[in-house]
């Protein structure tokens, strides 16, 4: 099952390469592949039993001399992430419908990217996890630098160097972790390590924890390692922005939860005050910088930085010194990963549609576009509501949970971060107002509204956003099951 989830996009990529002679054919193949993939991930989500712990395990020796295994498995933490990647894959393909250059190669790399991210979410062996983590670099680099806009080559290289540097630390951390384990207990098996608690007991636990933290902090991103993100987002093609905000950042959050929290609870508690500070900085700095942006895409990119601060806050909530640790903060962080993926994905889709039509992302140039493209305007507004955490959208439950957890641990951090919500309401509504509303501008009269394909891309994200907003338990129950063993590490 899990192997199929990785292999389907890869096989699809090969199929695109072999058969995608015309643009239409390449698109059609890519769309069918991501739809199959969505069906597979949906089936996995439906079939996953939250009471079952690690499921669908596949284990085979890979490099026996080093104890490296081909080990796949999912739990309540990874199943929603896999589903998220499935959903975003469809949105990404639909929002690339108008790509004109080298269409075949574009979908080829997009599918490889999806496969690599899937691999990250289902790998249970640290080395395998790292291989997939690195595998994603190349398609991203090519997608940004070949199909991007503006300073695309600069941004692609910056993305590559930042991420690669971060993963360098992770690589060292994995090896040091392995050799610091007691003889006979050495393993890369994350499930075994999470179960026996040995990782946190090694001598250089703080160093290893730090290595992982840096790698994931670059990816999430956490201030001050975030500077690659706005550049990459701004210059990437729409589909890549969708994947980047939707799942690539989530790899960082997933790693923090799975490895930093799951394997090193003691170190995480020690680092919690620092993380709380970084969370506040992320949220407020991101939000303030958003205000200053005149480029619509850059604005959404910085809002990502701000919103990822909430994930960090949820993570820091385990540092609670008073009262019983309920885990609501961690659960909120996990939920925020999912919902932010959906909501920001949607925002990037909409921004992409606007750019494609108006050929500008300069906010002051826009205005009154709701009259020409009402559907896009509504989607933009709804996504904006999601981003500012309006009840009824998926953003609300995630943020409320993060704050509930955050208040018990670091009331000051939660209070300051809450200000980020206010700012988010401000910049989102302001942006919507400046672009969509106001007097009609004749220059934009010729703009078409969303086509059927565009509506597909919007719908595939809008539906889960509203469903989860109304019934968040659909996900929180699963996350609860996945986070329960991690919480036990904190005595919760």
């Amino acid at each position, binding site marked *: 099952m899990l192997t199929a989830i990785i292999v389907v996009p890869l096989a699809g990529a090969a199929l695109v390469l072999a058969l995608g002679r015309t643009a239409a054919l390449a698109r059609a193949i890519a769309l069918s592949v991501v739809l199959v993939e969505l069906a597979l991930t949906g089936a996995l989500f439906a079939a996953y039993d939250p009471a079952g712990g690690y499921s669908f395990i596949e284990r085979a*020796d*890979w*490099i*026996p*001399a*080093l104890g490296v295994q081909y080990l796949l498995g999912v739990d309540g933490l990874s199943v929603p992430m896999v589903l998220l990647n499935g959903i975003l894959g469809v949105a990404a393909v639909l929002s690339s419908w108008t790509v004109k250059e080298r269409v075949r190669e574009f979908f080829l790399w997009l599918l490889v990217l999806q496969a690599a991210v899937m691999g990250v979410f289902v790998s249970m062996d640290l*080395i395998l996890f790292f*291989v997939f983590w*690195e*595998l994603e*670099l*190349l398609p991203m*680099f*090519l997608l940004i*630098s*070949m199909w991007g806009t503006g300073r695309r*080559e600069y941004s*692609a*290289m910056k993305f*590559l*160097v930042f991420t*690669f*540097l971060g993963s*360098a*630390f992770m*690589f*060292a951390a994995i*090896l*040091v972790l*392995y*050799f610091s384990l007691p003889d006979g207990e050495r393993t890369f098996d994350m499930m075994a390590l999470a179960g026996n608690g040995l990782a946190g007991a090694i001598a250089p636990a703080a160093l290893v924890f730090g290595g992982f933290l840096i790698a994931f902090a670059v990816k999430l991103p956490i201030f001050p390692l975030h500077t690659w993100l706005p550049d990459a987002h701004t210059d990437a093609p729409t589909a890549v922005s969708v994947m980047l905000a939707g799942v690539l950042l989530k790899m960082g959050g997933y790693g923090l939860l799975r490895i930093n929290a799951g394997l090193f609870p003691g170190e995480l508690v020690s680092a919690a005050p620092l993380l709380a500070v970084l969370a506040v900085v992320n949220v407020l700095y991101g939000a303030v910088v958003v205000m200053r942006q005149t480029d619509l895409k850059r604005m959404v990119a910085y809002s990502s930085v701000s919103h990822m601060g909430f994930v960090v806050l949820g993570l820091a909530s385990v540092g609670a010194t008073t009262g019983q640790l309920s885990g609501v903060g961690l659960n909120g962080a996990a939920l925020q990963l999912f919902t932010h993926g959906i909501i920001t994905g949607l925002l990037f889709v909409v921004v992409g549609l606007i750019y494609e039509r108006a050929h500008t992302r300069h906010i002051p140039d826009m205005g009154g576009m709701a009259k020409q493209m009402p559907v896009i305007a509504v989607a933009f507004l709804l996504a904006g509501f999601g981003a500012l955490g309006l009840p009824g959208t998926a953003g609300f439950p995630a943020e409320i949970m993060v704050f509930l957890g955050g208040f018990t641990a670091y009331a000051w951090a939660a209070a300051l971060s809450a200000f980020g919500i206010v700012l988010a309401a401000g910049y989102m509504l302001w942006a919507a107002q400046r672009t969509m509303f106001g007097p009609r501008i004749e220059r934009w009269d010729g703009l078409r509204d969303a086509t059927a394909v565009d509506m597909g891309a919007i719908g595939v994200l809008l539906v889960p956003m509203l469903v989860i907003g109304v019934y968040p338990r659909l996900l929180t129950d699963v996350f609860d099951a996945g986070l329960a063993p991690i919480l036990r590490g904190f005595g919760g």
Partner: protein
Amino acid sequence: MGLTLRDLMLVSPELALVVLALAIVLLDLVLERKRFVLAVGVAGLGVPLAAALGLWAVVADGGAEMAFHGALIVDTFALYFKLLIVGILGLLLLASADHIERFRPHQAEFVALVLLSAAGLMLLAGAADLIAVFVSLELASLPVVALVAFGKNDRSIEAGIKYLVLSGVSAAVLLYGFAFLYGATGTVRLVALDPALPTIATMLPAVADGRPFGSTAVLVGVVLATAGFGFKLSMVPFQMWTPDVYEGAPTPVAAFLATASKAAAFAIVLRLFYTALGGASAEWSIMFAVLAAVTMSVGNVVAIAQSNVKRLLGYSAIAQAGYMLIGVAAVAGGGGDPLGVQSVLFYLGGYAAMNLAAFFAVIAITNVTGDDRIEALAGMGRRSPLLALILAFALISLIGIPPTVGFMGKLFLFNAAVSADLAWLAVFGVVNSVVSAYYYMGIVRTMYMREPPELDGPGEPGRIGAPVAAWLAMGVATAGVAVLGVWPAWLLDVAGSAAGALVP
């Protein structure tokens, strides 16, 4: 005791190469079609290959054997290198078919010189005393001097003279170092199967006076020998010649230097330090650790500024030597753990595949364009999608991004370093890989994102193809990079049994 048949059988791979080289020169006199000479050369490599495989079967079961009164040893370690070198030769000759045509009417001499040098390298891998080391090193080096100058243009001849002078100086330094080792210990023997015979390792404790490496004389000997080998390894600070020679020499010769020559140099360095000087591993481990750190940093940082692709590959070769030195330094638990040697052997195999793939693509491209500047690669993604893909894949492997052998090789090297308590060196290595990504990806970027240069007259710059033999060689090398990247266990096992001969 005279020369026995058994001695000849034990050196049959080298002997076969020498015979092949002579046969090619003779054939050249009678054959009109020069292509045929090359075909004979490639086909003839089957003999040393079969001989080496046969010997492997013998020594893997029955243990190592010594030939010529203990001058040469035939063990799985030496045979690993002999097999590797034969493999490199085969691919190299296939890929250079077109390039060699330029040397008309001396194609046969070119091939023969390559084979003779390779025979020297193979002997080097099996050298069991200092004299055999020196003689085989010279046998390997002298043909290379001629080969480097084979291009017969100013750059090529300059590179040849440079190689001649520096290789002579380094040989002198090496010999001087050997003299100290011999003077201190009274023996030139590195290994002996008979425990009664004195070797450097058994004599060292007797002369030890508490200084590093035992005594001052040994220390001086080791430092001089390291300097001498450092030249062959392209190790900083003895790397100066590398970019100049790579740039000036015919590209197949540069590829030969980067893969076969470097592999054999690592073989003898591993042999010397792990056997003869195994008792002083604490001292030389830290020495190689520092040299590794400096070598990879210098190679990677200077490579960033290069504008010529052959020069860049020269600096890349320096940096890659630095990575491999990590494995040399990673001697854990007083030398009882073969992990370091095993990782170097694996990396050398993978490095041969990825570096040859890169060189072959460059050979194929420059054969047509005649321009080895990096900017001349612009638009290669369109002019020759397959060549560009092969080169890009090889470069990604040189960075160490999965799913390539480069990643697996680095995994094993850094793994060995961490297990030998050299975690800092592993961190150094991974950070260096990040730096290297910048210039390797720079080439990828040029190939795919820059427009092809304007040609004289109208029309698209032509597509670039390659002869079938070259495609075959590139296919094999690229497949090696990919297969070993996904399924490295088998070569790791082979490298493990080869390393076992050195570190029991």
